[in-house]
């Protein structure tokens, strides 16, 4: 029996590329803010962080992620968690993200 999970995880990452950090202008996946996407049974979990604790955009970014998952993955229960460990550093930005930063 085929396991659909890897494809769905990739779809989640692709969908989350729509969420742009409004200050930096780079999407949260390329910024390295999405730590983990797991799909277990019918539950889709996303662990994400922010560039700095206390970031005023935390509410906005969380809402954007929840909205996007709600629109695109209606067959799943969704759980979005904001985490601080490990602490984000600029080293986590992907090559693509670095190119966008110029």
């Amino acid at each position, binding site marked *: 029996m085929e396991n659909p999970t890897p494809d*769905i995880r990739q*779809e989640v990452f*692709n*969908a989350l590329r*729509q*969420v*742009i950090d*409004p*200050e*930096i*202008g780079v999407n949260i996946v390329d910024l390295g803010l999405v*730590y983990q996407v797991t799909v277990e049974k019918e539950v889709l979990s996303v*662990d994400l*962080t922010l*560039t*700095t*604790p*206390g*970031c*005023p*955009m*935390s*509410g*906005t*970014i*969380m*809402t*954007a*992620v*929840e*909205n*996007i998952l709600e*629109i*695109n*993955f*209606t*067959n*799943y229960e969704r759980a979005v*968690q*904001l*985490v*601080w*460990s490990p602490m984000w*550093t*600029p080293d986590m*930005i992907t090559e693509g993200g*670095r190119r966008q*930063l*110029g």
Partner: protein
Amino acid sequence: MPAASVSNSPNKWVVLPHFAFAACAFLVVSVLLLFSTDAFAGHYFHPKLLTLTHVAVLGWATMLIFGALYQLLPVVLECKLYSERLAAAAFSLLAVGTVLLAICFWNFNLGGWLHVAGCCLFLAFVLFNINVYQTARLAPKWTITSDFIVTSALWLLLTGFLGLLMAINFTNPFLPKDHLLYLKMHAHMGMAGWFLLLIIGVGSKLIPMFLLSHPKGTRKLSWSYNLINAGLLLFVVDQLFFQTTYLPIYAALVVAGVALFMWYIYEARALALRKDLDLGMQQTFIALLLLLLPLVIVFLVSAEVGLQAPLLSALYLVYGLSVFLGFVTALILGQTFKTLPFIVWMHVYEKQVGRFKTPLPKDLYFPKLLQAQNFCYLAGYITLLLGVLLREPSVIMAGSIVFTAAALLYTVNVFHMLLHRARQLEPITYGKSNS
């Protein structure tokens, strides 16, 4: 992995009125400049200059810093603001106190209303201190940033207290020493204790954050904090009890503290992943460059180098202008466009992101006006300084006109942001759905 809490941002009505009041006050400062060209020919203790200084320092800079800080404290200290009610009360008292003080100074009415203004302002500073200290106590850890912010608030309180004593002393003389000695202390406690410490504390956190840079260690900042406070404390004690000729030594301590902060920012800039600076950050770095001028002049006015009285008097004026209309104003002009668009954007679009195509925060203001504002500000400021130094009213007037243009451009952009409303938004359509 531990889950974290969501946004700590305060209600927009706590923050935004500060920006509106400050923008109006900045416009008032520039218009007052137009009517005060004659005042720059004499001593700094002049009704028009006292009015100008206090509207600039309280109505413009302190008001905007209060507002921005209520938004930024949760960012830099990583916890919620202690009390939004205290913040609203401090706003009202600061606004009323500033308007009363300005009217009293302009008319040189040193009676009861001046005392009322002083009491309003002092009370505003007390409430602000309670809010800042309690917020810092709520923070998960006490850092060097907390030291800078809490200490700067304390210096503000002391500055306000001394100001109140001086206001009472005008009509009921009781202070044992010359009024100008207290004025000098009042000014320096405000400049180095309140503005400088606060800007270093918040700037050392925010500038690397905006640059996407993580400079390692805080030793330079700790030494910066120690040196600036030591210099200022020694200056105050010296002036109160001894009046020695060691003032340049105290100035050197403060300058060394600033130099360490500059070194920290230089390292942050070198490590930055964001190499391109937007207009707000460009203006911030210009402000840091402008800080060099008062750091040089402080030695000329504090050391007895035998300057002629008219030149020394003009230098005192340039010194004050270079701090308030130079460094502090330049920094605020830049940082307004790093903070206000986000605050407004967040409140207008927070629920819509991910569902609708929303503009970005930088789309909420006119970048061309901002560019023109930054240019007019620098041109106006430099012309004004030259006019004051040369004691040339026509040059002062020319500088004031260009400076007023900068204030107008700033005010238009600020109110354009404050009055921003969401238009009909287009829904986002995703290429592939898994529903």
